[in-house]
């Protein structure tokens, strides 16, 4: 029997759970835990410069690896600083465990120094939370936290740890719990066979079918199975922003992603479809546009692991609660020995789709002419070429995010890492940091904007301390571009506070941390700068790329319209 203090139990548990790295920031209520971390060397602690960055770094790691990211913060301000990152993970169903120090039990409720009811504050943005009430329950509670965070529909779990629970003098028996059971939590895995059969019957008869898949394919590790099913059926497929990479984008059957800034052909195909097979997607408002005009002729099959996602915004005709991978496998086995009766109709359907594709071919944006400012789109395409499409790509939020999603083509899942649900500016850089630490051989590119980057740029210091060689591509349009685009379209170009006045000299700023920065203003400078930037995978390089401040993101769905109502450029609309 082994006797450990609560703090040592935490460190030991993390090791036994196979956690290699955690992200955090110390403070009074967490100091016993920090002392325990100091006295071991199995778990590496990455000291960030702001607790929000710890959550985004853990989140980035989780999205790239599929394993839960782990965060350690102190009580009060440490914990509240983490809230944005917890909410970001919650909205995108990312597995994360956040350990928060708390004031000692006897002080709780007395407005003690650095006391915040963090369980209360985070309640609407966690999958679940725990408060430790006795040191001896630490191993089991932590096991439950990891289990909940990473199973079913994943999400963040907060564990609140009063300081006396980790006191070095109080020691209790430690046993690593290999398994836990929670009687009220039994995530489904297999879908209802009758429903799956019904769905497959509809698929084999459909004349204008479309697959619409989301982040559930990525989290559910179902992309191979999905690709197999889609190839067998020969249907077109579109993914959500979160589902990018869940199906190879270069593939003939891929229509790209859909929704507000989705591709013309994807939105057109959805609008005209007679069957939509939604898997691991949640019909969110950035996808559907006006739900009352959404896909008027389509029947809807909706597969999701979370029953509350089904028929939430759009009524499903065939609801299937189940894990994406298992449902797809079952669909494949049903499709295997059946003849499709819709080959001819499918041929016609593809003709329409090819027509839509051809309409926009070569018209997506106007490349810059010599002497003109660079277009953000051409920068993304150049980075795509420079990295052979193989990098981990994170983004911040804004126009650059949409351009990155549109022009970097992803062949694999877990490679496009973006805050889709919450749209958190400041996410990209710390997320990239978290990924690079665990994938040192890979290129990790963060596409950011000068607005977003300034929300988390203190993390340059973390990168310096831990030698984190991410590539930061700042698409510098000298404005809060996405805000300005909306002001152009909806407020007669009254640009209320969408300028970034007093921009710093980014190159000097980066150099102050001892890193390399390259400023790019012309097309000719771009390729050489990229060559230099990607010469050494492990070197942090910041590319400050000045791009056209007047560019808009298109297509853009018209507010309150249907899927097919889109602006296609500043002068064209459907």
């Amino acid at each position: 029997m082994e006797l450990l203090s609560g703090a040592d139990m935490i460190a030991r548990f993390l090791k036994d759970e196979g956690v290699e790295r955690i992200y955090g920031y110390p403070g009074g209520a967490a100091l016993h835990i920090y002392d325990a971390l100091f006295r071991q060397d199995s778990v590496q602690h990455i000291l960030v410069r702001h607790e929000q960055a710890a959550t985004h770094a853990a989140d980035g790691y989780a999205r790239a690896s599929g394993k839960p990211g782990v965060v350690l913060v102190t009580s009060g301000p440490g914990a509240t600083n983490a809230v944005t990152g917890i909410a970001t993970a919650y909205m995108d169903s990312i597995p994360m465990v956040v350990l928060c120090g708390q004031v000692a039990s006897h002080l709780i409720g007395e407005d003690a120094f650095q006391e915040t009811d963090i369980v209360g504050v985070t309640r609407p943005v966690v999958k679940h939370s725990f408060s430790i009430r006795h040191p001896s329950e630490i191993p089991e509670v932590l096991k439950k936290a990891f289990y909940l965070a990473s199973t079913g529909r994943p999400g963040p779990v907060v564990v609140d740890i009063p300081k006396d629970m980790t006191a070095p003098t109080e020691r209790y028996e430690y046993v690593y719990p290999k398994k836990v059971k929670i009687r009220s939590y039994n995530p489904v895995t297999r879908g209802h066979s009758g429903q799956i059969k019904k769905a497959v019957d509809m698929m084999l008869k459909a004349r204008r079918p479309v697959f619409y898949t989301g982040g559930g394919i990525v989290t559910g590790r179902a992309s191979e199975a999905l690709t197999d099913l889609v190839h067998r059926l020969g249907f077109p497929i579109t993914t959500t922003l979160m589902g990018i990479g869940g199906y190879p984008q270069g593939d003939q059957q891929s229509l790209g992603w859909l929704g507000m800034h989705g591709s013309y052909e994807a939105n057109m195909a959805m609008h005209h479809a007679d069957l939509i097979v939604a898997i691991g997607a949640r019909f969110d408002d950035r996808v559907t546009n006006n739900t009352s005009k959404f896909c008027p002729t389509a029947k809807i099959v909706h597969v999701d692991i979370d029953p509350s996602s089904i028929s939430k915004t759009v009524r499903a005709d065939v609801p299937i609660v189940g894990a994406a991978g298992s449902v797809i496998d079952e669909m494949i086995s049903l499709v295997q020995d059946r003849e499709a009766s819709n080959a001819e109709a499918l041929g016609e359907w593809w003709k329409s789709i090819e027509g839509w594709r051809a309409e926009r071919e070569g018209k997506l944006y106007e490349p810059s002419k010599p002497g003109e400012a660079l277009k953000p789109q051409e920068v993304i395409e150049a980075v795509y070429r420079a990295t052979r499409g193989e990098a981990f790509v994170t983004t911040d939020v804004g126009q650059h995010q949409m351009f990155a999603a549109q022009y970097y083509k992803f062949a694999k899942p877990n490679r496009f890492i973006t805050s889709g649900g919450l749209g958190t500016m400041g996410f990209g850089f710390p997320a990239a940091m978290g990924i690079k630490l665990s994938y040192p051989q890979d290129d990790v590119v963060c596409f950011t904007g000068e607005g977003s980057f300034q929300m988390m740029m203190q993390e340059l210091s973390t990168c310096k301390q831990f030698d984190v060689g991410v590539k930061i591509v700042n698409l510098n349009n000298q404005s809060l571009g996405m805000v300005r685009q909306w002001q152009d379209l909806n407020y007669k170009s009254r640009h209320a506070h969408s300028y970034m006045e007093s921009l710093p000299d980014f190159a000097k700023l980066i150099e102050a941390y001892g890193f390399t920065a390259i400023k790019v203003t012309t097309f000719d400078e771009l390729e050489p700068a990229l060559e230099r930037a990607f010469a050494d995978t492990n070197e942090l390089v910041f590319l400050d790329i000045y791009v056209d401040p007047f560019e808009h993101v298109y297509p853009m769905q018209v507010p309150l319209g249907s899927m097919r109502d889109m602006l296609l450029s500043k002068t064209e609309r459907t």
Partner: protein
Amino acid sequence: MRHIISILLENEPGALSRVVGLFSQRNFNIETLNVAPTEDPSLSRLTVTTVGDDRVIEQITKHLNKLIDVVKLVDLTEGNHIERELMLVKVKALGAARDEVKRTADIFRAQIVDVTPSVYTVQITGDAGKLDAFVQAMAPIGILEVARTGVSGIARGDKLLSL
């Protein structure tokens, strides 16, 4: 439509706040809420009455089921059920009103459970409609205070809400 949802909830700190928080967070409505421990000390039973169309009620039950602390739930209004609420009412009881209160209480099978020279405290149980009717009947006499427990309910017959 009005629905009565009964929930078996882990008897854990914070569990109730998750249920209540869910309703406000998702803009669901709570008409009454009633919660107490069960014969199993690890479980509380919580009954909530809410109003919504089928889509909303479906969302409410799905989201409740998603809460880790919710062990089981049933929408009692989907089947035959018994619905009860208890109310304590203080009424002015002076002069002629004293008899009037007593008579009305008898008609409703309510009991006078506390008496002062000027006030009767009346206890009544029944479904929410009966309690509303009693309040209406007493209103002209002069209601001083009302305390209602909120609805509790149970399915008729062999049907059980248990582990």
